[in-house]
């Protein structure tokens, strides 16, 4: 799910914070204010934990989806300004999300193209027990559909389980679950990845060095993700664990199952976030009722989070030192993408900007960011990675899928700006991606190959 970040302590009294600040501000603020209130009204919070698909042990699976429900839209009389602001920030948000998504995809595609390990067939996950090595097409299709059904049911069960845990306030359990899954990702999967990369490039590394590297990488990652850390480092770690997870999926999901699963996940995403009884939506609404931020887990956030305290003049004096807040203090997070994957991310920790806080507007501008669930990263990368792995060595297909996914993300962000509530980020992008993958692989590739062999240009 995609959400906007909004830094207000409570839904009921954003006016109070702002009115208390407004008196000190320039008269131009009120109109901006209204626009902001209207936009912030649309923010919905949604978390979605992603499942960790691992062949190792089901215990380590952290699956869950949390969604944040949208804040009821506040009526704004200045709709034009709201629209303009929406568009202006929409543009910024789009760019802010393009970069991490692109980076994740680049890492995955680079690994797929260079490290043989991730394209070798070496068994399957227990969630996809049916093999696709059957001679007949019908049998293969049936097996992949069955695999998909099993996988999606596991995801649904995990999500519902998580929602129940959240509803009955078993926070420690959820925290433990998420910590276990990110431990596994940061240590075990990184170790395997590093091993394979070293093997590919024939670089020797002794065990003490390896231990040091992995230990430092993992420990800093755990701290950054679950506790406090610089925003960029946190974002980098989230991108890396999304890429690792995507690589695991690419390796262990059989071909046809992968495509059917991608399609089914988008449909599930759509239903879970938008249907009234969808688990993610319920999660969001529960979090809203309790007026607390939903789990700071598995969400990539693109901008800094501020607390109300930042508005005080003293804070302006602080340098770009690390600022951290407890999860409880963080403002409402708006839309979040529900996605399947396993990564956790705490509420954004961001360094204080060096410039003094001069106006409410600047403050507000910094606050607005957008969050994208890590599962979305993972499934986008799975699509592009699978395209890179299986498209007969063709780079055009990979490129076409990449462009399609980014355009889908753009459209989703526009819808987010228009509807101002939590939206699923997977359906549009994955649909575009799938359409472009199959059409480019089957239609465009022969055409471009023929053109290239005659050296014709269009």
């Amino acid at each position, binding site marked *: 799910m995609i959400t906007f970040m909004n830094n207000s302590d409570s839904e009921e009294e954003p006016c109070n914070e702002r009115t208390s600040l407004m008196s000190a501000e320039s008269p131009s603020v009120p109109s901006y204010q209204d626009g902001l209130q209207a936009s912030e009204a649309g923010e919905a919070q949604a978390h979605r934990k992603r499942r960790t698909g691992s062949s190792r042990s089901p215990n380590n699976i952290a699956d869950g989806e949390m969604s944040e429900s949208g804040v009821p839209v506040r009526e704004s009389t200045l709709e*034009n300004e709201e629209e303009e602001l929406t568009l202006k920030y929409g543009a910024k948000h789009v760019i802010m999300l393009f970069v991490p998504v692109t980076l994740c995809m680049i890492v995955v595609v680079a690994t797929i193209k260079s490290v043989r390990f991730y394209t070798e067939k070496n068994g399957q996950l227990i969630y996809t027990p049916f093999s696709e090595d059957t001679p007949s097409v019908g049998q293969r299709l049936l097996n992949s559909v069955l695999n998909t059904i099993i996988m999606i049911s596991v995801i649904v069960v995990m999500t519902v389980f998580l929602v129940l845990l959240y509803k009955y306030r078993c926070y420690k359990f959820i925290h433990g679950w998420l910590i276990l899954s990110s431990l596994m990702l940061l240590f075990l999967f990184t170790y395997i990845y590093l091993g394979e990369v070293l093997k590919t490039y024939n670089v020797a590394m002794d065990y003490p060095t390896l231990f040091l590297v992995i230990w430092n990488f993992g420990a800093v990652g755990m701290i950054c993700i679950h506790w406090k850390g610089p925003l960029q480092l946190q974002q980098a770690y989230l991108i890396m664990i999304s890429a690792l997870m995507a690589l695991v999926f690419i390796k262990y999901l059989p071909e046809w199952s992968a495509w059917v699963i991608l399609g089914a996940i988008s449909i599930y995403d759509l239903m879970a976030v938008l249907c009234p009884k969808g688990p993610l939506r319920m999660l969001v609404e529960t979090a809203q009722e309790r007026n607390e931020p939903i789990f700071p887990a598995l969400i990539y956030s693109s901008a800094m989070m501020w607390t109300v305290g930042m508005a005080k003049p003293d804070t302006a004096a602080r340098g770009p030192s690390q600022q951290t807040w407890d999860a409880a203090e963080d403002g409402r997070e708006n839309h979040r993408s529900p996605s399947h994957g396993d990564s956790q991310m705490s509420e954004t920790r961001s360094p204080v900007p060096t410039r003094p806080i001069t106006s409410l507007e600047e403050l507000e501008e910094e606050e607005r960011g957008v969050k994208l669930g890590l599962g979305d990263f993972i499934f986008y990368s799975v699509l592009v990675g699978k395209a890179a792995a299986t498209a007969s060595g063709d780079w055009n297909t990979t490129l076409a899928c990449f*462009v*399609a996914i980014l355009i889908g993300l*753009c459209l989703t962000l526009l819808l987010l700006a228009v509807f101002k509530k939590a939206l699923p980020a997977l359906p549009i992008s994955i649909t575009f991606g799938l359409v*472009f993958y199959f059409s480019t692989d089957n239609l465009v590739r022969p*055409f*471009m190959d*023929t053109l290239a062999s005659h*050296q014709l240009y*269009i």
Partner: protein
Amino acid sequence: MGTGMALALVPAPVLAWAFFWLVSLLLSSLIWFITVKASDPRDELLQKGLLIFGVMFSVLLQEAFRFLYYKLLRKAIEGLVALSEDGCSPISIQQMAYVAGVGFGLMSGTFSMINLLADALGPGTTGIHGDSQLYFLTSAFMTMVLIFLHTFWGILFFHGCEHRRWWEIIAVVIMHLAVSGSTFCNPLYMGSLVPSYLLMATAATWAYLLSGGSAQNLRRFLLCKSCSVIGTGDPVGSSGYLDQCWGGERVPRGLEQGHHSLGCQTRGDAGVWGHGQVVASPGGSE
């Protein structure tokens, strides 16, 4: 809905144009694929003819998509102008023209080149079966000229659409067909590269003039770096864009009243069309 989509794609315009090029390629590949499957694969002449048809159809479809997205963008800009307070939209059609060209060109070039680059890494010998040994080199040059051409065509095309000069649009389409057609001479590279580069020079000059450039500007830029360009440009330049941008007296012929707001100086893009003239007022509405 169309406006919405265009608005959605405004934040990442290069990507949007790349996407539209991709869609046009997809459709033309589909047509070619259908014709090939429906025909006899052993008939060499027929296959060659179908390929030529495929190439021409693809070129026409690309231009059609350029026009289509131009229309969507116009609507989107009008919508944005209506929404904004001072009658100026945050994006200008001139910027969009450039981005259109760059987007199309980059995508077209990438699609042409990337498989070649991947193959160039691997072990192999160029032209071992008797083909030209200059394959990679000429492909690189051809791709480059095509990217540049797309950029200039974008500017020409949008200018023609904005000012209802249909002959500019026709010229772009004919140039595109000519360049693609000249590649049929390959591997006789004299027949394809040389005309393409000449066409590129023509298109470059034309686009430069349309954007408000002139020989004086060029000379001034090259020789007198210390002189400020601002304020010394020709206020009544030959291009219609200038009239729009700076609220000049001359409203281009054929432009209805409703469109004048499109020429408002956009925020922060002074001199994007080359003249560098100081804007009198940001919201200059006639």
